[in-house]
């Protein structure tokens, strides 16, 4: 379970971004976070994952009861936190398949497991590239190198599938996707959900939520969650925008 309590965070230059976020995500739950541009949605993910531009001012973040704010970025990831980036960066020259394997072996080493066997890894790759309708080109190209926006998002979901996190935070995974790609990515997310895992989606649009049904929808505004509700809240936001929601 991910528990975020009264989290306050700012940029290293002192600009306050998160002003007391409370969020509890239980296993098996899908949460959607919506909110106007600049409200702190991406910053929430970056702050909890340990992005170097952010500093935690107060509050706590625990994953299955373990305080993750004392861990470095890779330890947080290996503990089961996955952040799908809004703008995945390119790392030319590092083959996607090598990167995925390195990441998986890092996690396994952290958990005290041996490196994954070739056959096991190939099986995983085959299963998930097939699920996400990704062809072999993705394996041997540099990480996100020359990928379109949609291909990068698909690659993020592939990484999520391979790394099998407890909590996946997907930052605008639907942006840049055409209708077919959206359907494929959503199918991937749904198929990867198990009763032990949770997903937090950041999105601006209802269309992703038509495919990935959230249990809870939250509105983040000015660095705080100001409204929470069920899936109907997203529909209301789509219709009425954010102006009707007051500050808390």
């Amino acid at each position: 379970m991910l528990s975020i309590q009264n989290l306050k965070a700012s940029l290293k230059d002192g600009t306050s971004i998160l002003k007391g976020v409370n969020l509890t995500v239980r296993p098996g739950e899908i949460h959607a976070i919506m909110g106007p541009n600049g409200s702190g949605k991406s910053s929430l993910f970056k702050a909890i994952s340990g992005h170097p531009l952010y500093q935690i001012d107060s509050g706590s973040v625990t994953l299955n009861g373990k305080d993750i704010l004392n861990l470095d970025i890779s330890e947080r990831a290996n503990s089961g936190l996955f952040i799908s980036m809004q703008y995945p960066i390119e790392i030319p020259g590092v083959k996607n398949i090598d990167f995925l394997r390195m990441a998986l072996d890092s996690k396994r080493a952290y958990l005290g497991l041996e490196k994954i066997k070739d056959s096991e890894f190939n099986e995983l790759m085959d299963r998930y590239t097939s699920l996400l309708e990704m062809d072999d080109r993705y394996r041997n190209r540099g990480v996100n190198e020359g990928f379109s926006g949609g291909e990068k998002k698909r690659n993020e979901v592939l990484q999520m599938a391979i790394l099998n996190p407890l909590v996946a935070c997907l930052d605008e995974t639907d942006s840049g996707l055409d209708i077919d790609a959206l359907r494929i990515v959503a199918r991937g997310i749904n198929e990867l959900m198990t009763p032990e895992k949770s997903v937090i989606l950041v999105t601006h649009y209802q269309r992703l939520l038509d495919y990935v049904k959230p249990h809870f929808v939250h509105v983040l505004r000015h660095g705080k969650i100001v409204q929470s509700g069920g899936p109907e809240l997203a529909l209301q936001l789509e219709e009425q925008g954010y102006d009707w929601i007051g500050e808390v």
Partner: protein
Amino acid sequence: MDTKQIAYSRFTEIGLPKPRNDDWFFFPNAVLKNILVQPVTESSSESIAKEFDLGVETEKNIAALIPLIQTRKAFVKKIPANEQETGILKARDDFSHTLFHIQKGADVSLEILDNKNEHDFTAERLDFFLEENAQLELFFCNPPQKHNLQFRHIRIVAAANASIKILGVQQNTGCYRQSFDLFLNGEDSTVDFRLLNKLEDDTEAHYHLIIHHNAPHTKSNQLVRQILNGKSHVSYDGAVHVGKDCTEVNSAQLINNILLSEEAKVSIKPVLKIYHDDVECSHGNTCGELDAESLYYLQSRGIDAKKAEDILLQNFAVNTFSELNSSVGSKRILSAITNRA
């Protein structure tokens, strides 16, 4: 006078570089006190100067003169026309002079090995004369060793359609200076110069390169990448000279630097001397740290900070050479970079 005597006479004429000498501006001139050049008392047995113009009379670089003065015997080799040759070059003495005459259409690939360096000062000079359509690949990727003070001067003269490829990975410590005088004297001759410096400690590495475009349709490319740690200091003084009547010359120079410590220092001096309008010459230089977003991305996938840094540095290094066509040198260098990671 023979080569030795001419070189000594020229050396005494120009003397050791003064602090205001532009070509030695970045070099820690205090270490030059270790240089002791013995007066020439006997003639050299070779008649190199008669057969090849080594440019000794007008030479301004003492690093090009000292090996000629101090060497006991030059190593001279002729590669016959249309022959293929691969081999290694290793100086036998502290001071050495090597000369290759590569005849028409010959294809030569040579690896320069470092001599085991136990002395205060060593200097070597390598001369290559390429006839029409000849190809020369020179490469070096020696395991790191310390040089107290080392000079290496490479001078190459290329005739029409000849191609020069110089590929180097340098990880030595200590103090060294490498200079290159590359003459594209024939039409359509080319040079591709790629250098990767991975420097640590208080290493002083200094490079001085001049590419002389002396004929039309000549082409040169310089790609230099440097990763500096500790208190290391590297300078790259890279000049491109395009002569009169040299139309449609194409020249590019790109230097990328990553500084891993606050005390590391890089000095770059691009020089363009162009005496014709119909040329395309570019130069660029970047300097920075490892990309923080890339490091974050890798770590956010569970890869620890040190490994993430290694991956990015490895990538930076490999990309210096990765787009090259497969050759003895490029394969050897890529393998050396990968294995030493």
